[in-house]
């Protein structure tokens, strides 16, 4: 049990995939414009992470080293396409707003990094839990990013007008450049907190 709590703490805080390991930043910055996108992307990525980590650690002894990367990616791509198709059929509006970013989960560095660094070296259950914790860490980072960018950038939160009418939204935060700036400040803040807590 203790191991799992440690993994959760690691996934969300000390070893957060976005703020500490700097993985998966392509989708973090591009998607985090509003909360629904962030939540949708985060949960889809978490689902893929759990399944792919579990399956990869199941097959880790069977896959020879030379074709390791190719087979991992095919497994991950298989899961992503399956989830993409299911989403298009049963969650059409979410799938439309996530657009081109669902296929890009395949090459989202978090999934392959966790598969390579963790799943290929550990048993099935820890790998699945690692997938879950890293996925939640990723969603946690996405949510923070999107709350800031949506409130300041378009004055709404989950589509609901939050800021007073006189508020002139900071358009820059919605644009790509805003992604870089917001993530930069967030990582700085994160490093400051982690440094003070030793």
């Amino acid at each position, binding site marked *: 049990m203790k191991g799992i709590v440690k993994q959760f703490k690691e996934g969300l805080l000390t070893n957060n995939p976005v703020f500490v*390991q*700097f993985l998966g930043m392509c989708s973090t910055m591009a998607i985090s414009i509003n909360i629904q996108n962030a939540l949708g992307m985060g949960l889809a990525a978490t689902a893929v992470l759990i399944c792919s980590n579990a399956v990869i650690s199941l097959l880790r002894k069977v896959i020879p*080293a*030379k*074709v390791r990367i*190719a087979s991992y990616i*095919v497994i991950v791509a298989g899961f992503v396409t399956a989830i993409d198709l299911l989403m298009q059929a049963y969650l059409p509006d979410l799938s439309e707003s996530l657009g081109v970013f669902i296929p890009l989960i395949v090459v989202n560095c978090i999934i392959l*990094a966790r598969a*390579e*660094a963790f799943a290929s070296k550990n048993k099935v259950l820890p790998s699945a839990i690692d997938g879950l914790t890293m996925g939640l860490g990723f969603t946690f980072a996405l949510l923070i990013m999107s709350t800031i960018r949506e409130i300041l950038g378009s004055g709404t939160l989950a589509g609901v007008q939050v800021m007073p009418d006189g508020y002139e939204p900071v358009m820059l935060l919605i644009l790509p450049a805003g992604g870089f700036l917001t993530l930069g400040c967030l990582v700085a803040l994160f490093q400051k907190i982690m440094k003070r807590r030793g």
Partner: protein
Amino acid sequence: MLSISSVLIPAATLGAMGLFFGALLAVSSKLFHVAQDPRIGEVTDTLPGANCGGCGYAGCANLAEAIVAGKAPVSSCPVGGPPVAEKIAAIMGVEAGDVGRMVAHVNCRGGDNAKRKYQYQGMKDCLSASKVAGGPLECTYGCLGLGSCVKVCKYGALHIENGVAVVDAKKCVACGACASVCPRHLISMVSDKQDVFVSCSSHLRGTELRRICNIGCIGCMLCQKACPSGAITVTDNLASIDYDKCTNCGACAAACPRKLIVNASESAPQAAQ
């Protein structure tokens, strides 16, 4: 609906592609087989594989090659830390222990004791400062204390104490980043078992040196006479210790009138006056 063909066709096409690429990789791995030290593969696997570049190399395989070729120390992976270092040491057949932990050491203690030629207000970087008329210090060998080594060190093992860089042996992993960035080349890698050091690198003659720094080596040779094992010799107005012969007895530190020979085992002596 779920018909057989709608499952068979994709399975067949992708299976054929998988086979084709698998075969391509297999044949090419045989055809283009390059004799490579198998240990590189093993070391790459033990490294975390995040290719973060924290060790200064462009990725883990690159670092593995450097370690196997002996160019990089066993413990240069910051992310992996000691556990990974031990595993790599085992692969390399080198015990992490017996190689002796190397530690960086700054061969100067001038800092605020050294006289200034001018008040430097440029970029807080030793390299840039040393370009301005040979640096703000009268002494052309001494530490400028602007902290380029502190900035480059990824483990926070260096800090500036009254004008001169000091190494915290516990945190230092001997990655050599500070040694390469210091424009005066004052930082050398020594075994952490060595306690006695000459903390000066100036070859100026005694009279000249007395004027510009009150704790520099004047080449009076007293230490050379006092040393029982002949480990310390004065060459070109500067005392230097042969670390293999030195037994850390501290006789030279006691004999030195300028108190600049540091004996880490006792508390570091204060400046001369």
